[in-house]
């Protein structure tokens, strides 16, 4: 647990949080850059088809989170090895954050990241929009660590676990609503 209150390593936890966050931002930005390059393949499709496909994927995401349909996720079902953090804590935290930030090196168990990735692929937004969305993804992941650290108490994990079903469902619906407003109005 990188950000649990029982930290005993000789490196300040706030420094580890900072480099971990930097890694997450870099990882998300890199993945989004790749998505932007690939999104060019969707450019020839008519706008209505792309909009319809994005909203259909977002609806599937909501239904999956609600447990109404089963959709296997193409996630990389492996954990980042513990050895990454064992020897050099700062560098390890940077690598760990980067690998998590890319979203392709370990478990991605919620639907929203897939909806956003496919949305970016199909929408073929400009490079700034696409890349900042990836940076936002990294920032979103970093929020968990930052709040966990700020809570200074292990009890926070219990609250997080209790809220997760509500959180993933609410995020799925919010993503759908936002994309619908953005693309249809």
């Amino acid at each position: 647990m990188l950000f649990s209150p029982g930290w005993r390593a000789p490196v300040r936890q706030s420094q580890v949080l900072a480099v971990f966050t930097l890694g997450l931002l870099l990882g998300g930005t890199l993945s989004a850059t790749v998505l932007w390059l690939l999104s060019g393949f969707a450019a020839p499709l008519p706008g209505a088809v792309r909009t319809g496909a994005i909203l259909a994927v977002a609806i599937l995401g909501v239904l999956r989170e609600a447990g109404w349909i089963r959709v296997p996720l193409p996630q990389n079902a492996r954990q980042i090895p513990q050895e990454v953090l064992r020897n050099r804590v700062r560098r390890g935290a940077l690598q760990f954050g980067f690998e998590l930030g890319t979203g392709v090196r370990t478990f991605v168990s919620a639907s929203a990241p897939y909806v956003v990735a496919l949305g970016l692929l199909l929408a073929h937004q400009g490079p700034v929009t696409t890349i900042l969305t990836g940076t936002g993804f990294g920032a979103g992941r970093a929020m968990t660590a930052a709040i966990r650290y700020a809570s200074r108490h292990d009890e926070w994990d219990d609250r997080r676990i209790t809220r997760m079903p509500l959180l993933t469902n609410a995020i799925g619906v919010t993503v759908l609503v936002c994309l619908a407003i953005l693309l249809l109005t």
Partner: protein
Amino acid sequence: MPAAETRPAGRLRRGLTEPLLPFAALALLAVAAAAADHTVLCWASVGALAGYSLSGSV
């Protein structure tokens, strides 16, 4: 006196670190950006929401 990590978190700290709070803030931002047709901010907020949906233990 118990160590800091074993003492119960204060009410203010508990409230400010509520796991649903970042969701509420990001959701408001994303919907407002979508309504204002601010594409970059909307996508970036949606990206942050997607990242926050993976609130795994770290």
